[in-house]
């Protein structure tokens, strides 16, 4: 029963924050930015018509914030009313919808033109793809692998302690003046050191074999690694608080880490997952960690925003630390 709470409680916590910070990043209906540098009522008519049908959500903002949001995937289409015409912007990999929208508009103009001869068009419609840095599969994959390695290090590492506890070595140490906490701290320090070594190895092999360039600052990267490692170490100890044997501890950890591996967007981007499963991504700490590492290491735009990544991981860290502190058993 307590296992359920270990998993459910932090998950609920994160779910709330996921919703708060997630914004409206979901895909359908379309989110369309409208920038009116000129008034073009006919286009308004079309857009509002579509909005009434429930097919899109309209956001009014200025060009730069619209473009930033578009790059981050928070908008599907940006519609810019300019004096010379209408410009549609969209992500190069998602052009179908914008072509459709532009197509509607074009046909609306033709119809109007056909039926209302006095109406003067002279409005051009243009569709442009925004420039996005091209990322290879490996660029996406490598930071994810590092994130996963750190996650597994933190989770499985706690089994060392379970092993000591199971074999009653902890008991032997308890009759000495060694303070209990020092044993844990020493394990944690070792794990952090290993995390850094992992980082060095993975980054170096990525660079050597696949020419993956680290675009962010090493300091930031190490800071994120440190932070993520702490979070997963804390989660690891939290999960095994009650495990009597290494076997049962392994069981609990597998139960948690297995879905995390596949549903955190490490191996494939969340866009490729079916809708119904996608919300789970928001609940898993690894999703946010991977996101932060991808952004820091290779510059892939973040899915949630670095601030959200930090906050969510921080909440997981606090929550698991508190639970571990409360329920941890030394025998």
């Amino acid at each position, binding site marked *: 029963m307590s296992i359920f709470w270990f998993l459910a409680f932090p998950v609920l916590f994160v779910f709330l924050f996921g919703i708060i910070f997630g914004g409206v990043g979901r895909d359908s209906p379309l989110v369309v930015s409208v920038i009116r540098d000129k008034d073009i009522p006919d286009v308004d008519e079309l857009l509002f018509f579509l909005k009434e049908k429930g097919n899109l959500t309209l956001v009014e903002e200025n060009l730069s914030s619209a473009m930033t949001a578009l790059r981050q995937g928070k908008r599907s289409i940006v519609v810019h009313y300019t004096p010379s015409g209408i410009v549609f912007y969209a992500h190069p990999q998602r052009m179908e919808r914008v072509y459709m929208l532009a197509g509607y508009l074009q046909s609306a103009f033709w119809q109007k033109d056909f039926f209302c001869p006095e109406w003067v068009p002279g409005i051009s419609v243009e569709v442009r793809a925004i420039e996005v840095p091209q990322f290879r599969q490996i660029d996406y994959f490598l930071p994810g692998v590092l994130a996963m390695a750190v996650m597994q290090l933190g989770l499985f590492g706690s089994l060392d302690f379970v092993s000591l506890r199971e*074999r*009653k*070595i902890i*008991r*032997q140490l*308890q*009759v*000495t*003046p*060694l*303070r209990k906490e020092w044993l844990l701290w020493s394990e944690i320090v070792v794990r952090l050191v290993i995390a850094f070594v992992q980082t060095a190895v993975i980054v170096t092999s990525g660079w050597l074999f696949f020419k993956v360039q680290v675009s962010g600052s090493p300091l930031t990267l190490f800071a994120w690694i440190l932070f993520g490692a702490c979070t997963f170490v804390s989660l690891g100890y939290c999960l095994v608080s009650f495990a009597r044997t290494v076997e049962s501890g392994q069981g609990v950890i597998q139960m948690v880490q297995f879905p995390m591996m596949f549903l955190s967007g490490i191996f494939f981007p969340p866009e490729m997952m079916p809708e119904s499963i996608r919300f789970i991504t928001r609940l898993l700490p690894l999703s946010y960690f991977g996101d932060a590492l991808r952004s820091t290491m290779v510059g892939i735009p973040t899915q949630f925003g670095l601030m959200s990544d930090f906050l969510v991981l921080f909440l997981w860290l606090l929550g698991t630390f508190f639970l571990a502190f409360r329920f941890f058993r030394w025998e």
Partner: protein
Amino acid sequence: MNVIVVEELRKWYGEVRAVDGISFTVEGGEVFGLLGPNGAGKTTTVETVIGLLRRDGGRVEVLGIDPLVDPFSVRSRIGVQLQVAQFFPRLTVSETLRLFGSFYPKRRPEKEILNLVGLTEKAHALVEKLSGGQLKRLSVGLALVGEVEIAFFDEPTSGLDPQSRRNLWDIILTLKERGKTVFLTTHYLDEAERLCDRVAIIDRGTIIALGKPRELIAEYFREKAVEIPFAEIQNPALLSSLPAVTKVRTDREMVTLYTHNLAQTFAGLGQLEEEGQLSLHNIVVREATLEDVFLKLTGRRIRD
């Protein structure tokens, strides 16, 4: 000066009263023994006194400190050898001594301890490769590696060969010479009689006798014991009617006669032999021991 004070100590596991109101004190510099059969509560007592287990009731003070209130201070000044010894399997003996030594404010040199417990040749052996006896000796060594004032031993010689037992007895007597206090538990009578200045006999969670071994024997036993193997007797009932016999105890292996006048009893035994009722072939005559005290007080043998 009392270095250990235990008053009405209680430790229950649910319904089972492992330790049920035990009281005793231990003076500085003495060797104090807790003697009793398996399951009597010896280990529970030791582990509660050092603070490894939470007691359910009573007062405990080690060197004037309650081990539950300030465990750190207590543990810095005592050494403990637990009955079940478990160490890091992939460390060597040497490394283990150094590791544990590093926990204490003052420590004895590694070589000295190795020498003391006879593990010098095994200094670089992995702990997982040690035999049971060697592990036990390591355990004793680790109890002594910090310069401790009190050493606690829980069944220090069980499972050891006679030579190792004697070596360990020497270690304990040396500790005493150095002015250290020793608290040990055992189910071996010879150990209790030989090593302990005072001994508390414990059975089923309570102390049934406490004092110097010789005094306890003298108090409870002024008689000699005659042991006759059961197989050699035709009719055991006859034995109680022998002259000077105060008590007859029968168990699976033998019949024990307690007599306050050996000569008279023997005359009677001789007669029975002539009548063909028994054989004096394997008869044993001995002084009373703590076992007899225990037997008298509880009706059972310690060895059962």
